[in-house]
């Protein structure tokens, strides 16, 4: 790739690559190179999507998945940031929980499904709980390292100018200085959340994941693809909105 490629030219090529991929896929099926039982025909997807939409199914499952997603995201992000920032600022708390965090960190969110069901039953809270776990760790580590790497000079400035209380330093130095890292963690969590949404719904909680399981048991691969694209689209939308907010919050950056 030449470094002098302009942005619009780059976008154009990316679009061409995507179109070529879909076209090859379509041709492979039509020419019989690929069996129709393996993957659906791309050109059939818009119509399948339309049927899902007018049946009201699409809106229903998307709405309930969005519910799990946003509750899990909110919970995981706020707890992750709180614990991460606290750990970076309070050495005693850091020491106290360090081994516990190391122990729990490698456990994948989906391994919590049994407990989620025992604790919450098969209901939206269970799905939100599972989603929140992955989101928690991403935000925890991002916030922790963001606060840890703040230039100690800023803290000295705050002290020299009478901002000595913990809360003043937190709001005037630590949080704004760590904001780029914390927002980066939030954005990564936004993607991580979608990855666990589908899995968290596989055991019977209504949502996109459950609809995909239903469809796949009927070998309706076209419906599965509709919801794959739905997730991609929702992620792109959320990521875009977040990026706009991030850019506004960090407009002080060079």
């Amino acid at each position, binding site marked *: 790739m030449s470094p002098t490629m302009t942005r619009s030219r780059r976008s154009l090529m990316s679009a061409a690559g995507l179109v070529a991929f879909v076209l090859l896929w379509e041709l492979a099926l039509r020419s019989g190179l690929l069996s129709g039982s393996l993957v659906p025909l791309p050109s059939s997807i818009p119509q399948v999507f339309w049927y899902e939409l007018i049946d009201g199914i699409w809106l229903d499952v998307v709405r309930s998945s969005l519910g799990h997603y946003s509750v899990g995201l909110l919970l995981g992000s706020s707890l992750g940031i709180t614990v991460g920032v606290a750990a970076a600022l309070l050495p005693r708390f850091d020491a106290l929980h360090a081994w516990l965090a190391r122990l729990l960190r490698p456990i994948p969110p989906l391994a919590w499904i049994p407990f989620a069901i025992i604790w919450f039953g098969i209901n939206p809270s269970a799905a939100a709980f599972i989603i929140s776990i992955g989101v928690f760790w991403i935000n925890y580590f991002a916030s922790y390292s963001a606060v840890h790497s703040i230039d100690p*000079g*800023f803290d*000295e*400035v*705050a*002290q*020299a*100018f*009478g*901002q000595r209380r913990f809360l*003043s330093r937190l709001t*005037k*130095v630590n949080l*704004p*200085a760590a*904001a780029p890292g914390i927002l980066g963690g939030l954005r990564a969590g936004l993607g991580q959340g979608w990855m666990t949404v589908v899995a968290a719904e596989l055991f019977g909680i209504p949502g996109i994941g459950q609809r995909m399981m239903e469809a796949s048991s009927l070998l309706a691969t076209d419906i599965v693809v509709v919801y794959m694209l739905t997730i991609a689209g929702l992620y792109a939308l959320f990521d875009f909105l977040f990026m706009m907010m991030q850019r506004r919050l960090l*407009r*002080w*950056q*060079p």
Partner: protein
Amino acid sequence: MTTSMTTFLTPPSVATTRVNFAGPVLNARNLSLGFDDTAVLAGVDLALYPREFVAVVGASGVGKSTLLRALTGLLAPQTGEVDIPAGQDAGTRAWSMVFQAPRLFPWRRVRTNVELGLEGLGLSRVERRERAMQPLKLVGLDAYAERWPHTLSGGQQQRVGIARALAVRPKVLFMDEPFASLDAITRRRLQQELIALRQRTEAAIVFVTHDIEEAVLLADRVMILGNQETGQPARVVETLSVNLSLDERRDLPDFAPLVQRVEAIIGNH
């Protein structure tokens, strides 16, 4: 000394409070400090009077910045005590500081950076704004008030740092090699600005520098820190008065000999 002259230049209402009989604005006695069993400073005394300018010089690494932080309480001294009588006036702080790097908060605009020390003093938002604009005007950057710090040059950022320190109307202004990281031309200009600024602020100044010429150029007194050999804690080796007019001081016949004398003392310690 210049103090009496500048007193004469200021309005009488302020001048009456500024006569040197008022007693020191900073009084440090027998300050000692160290890190991890290594003594850095031993037995430093300093009495600073209103509007006085004391430069602290010494070889690099001798403990000048440490002394400054011990005087402010940013570092706790092991022995001795520092007394900076708190200001009587509301909306002021006893001391403030200009750092070697400007250390502006990049997430705040120039004006709100200057407002930092005014927060928590019970001032309204409007009052804070006005109090920030005054020193910004003084350093010639009021037009840049709503800019982000990174859009300013190094010299401009350091001026904002000075405005931030002046905004709290300190009794004592600590300056930690404030011009050391600037280019020669900017440094000269800011030195001249600081000389002019002294006429317009009541603060006494403690100015740390490794630049002997700068110390003699700006100060009323030059305090020389040194140690017998490396590893030994630093002491005040000598304090010299600079009885030269601040106008074109560099061109006075007594300037160069004084610089050489300070250099000689530092060389011997």
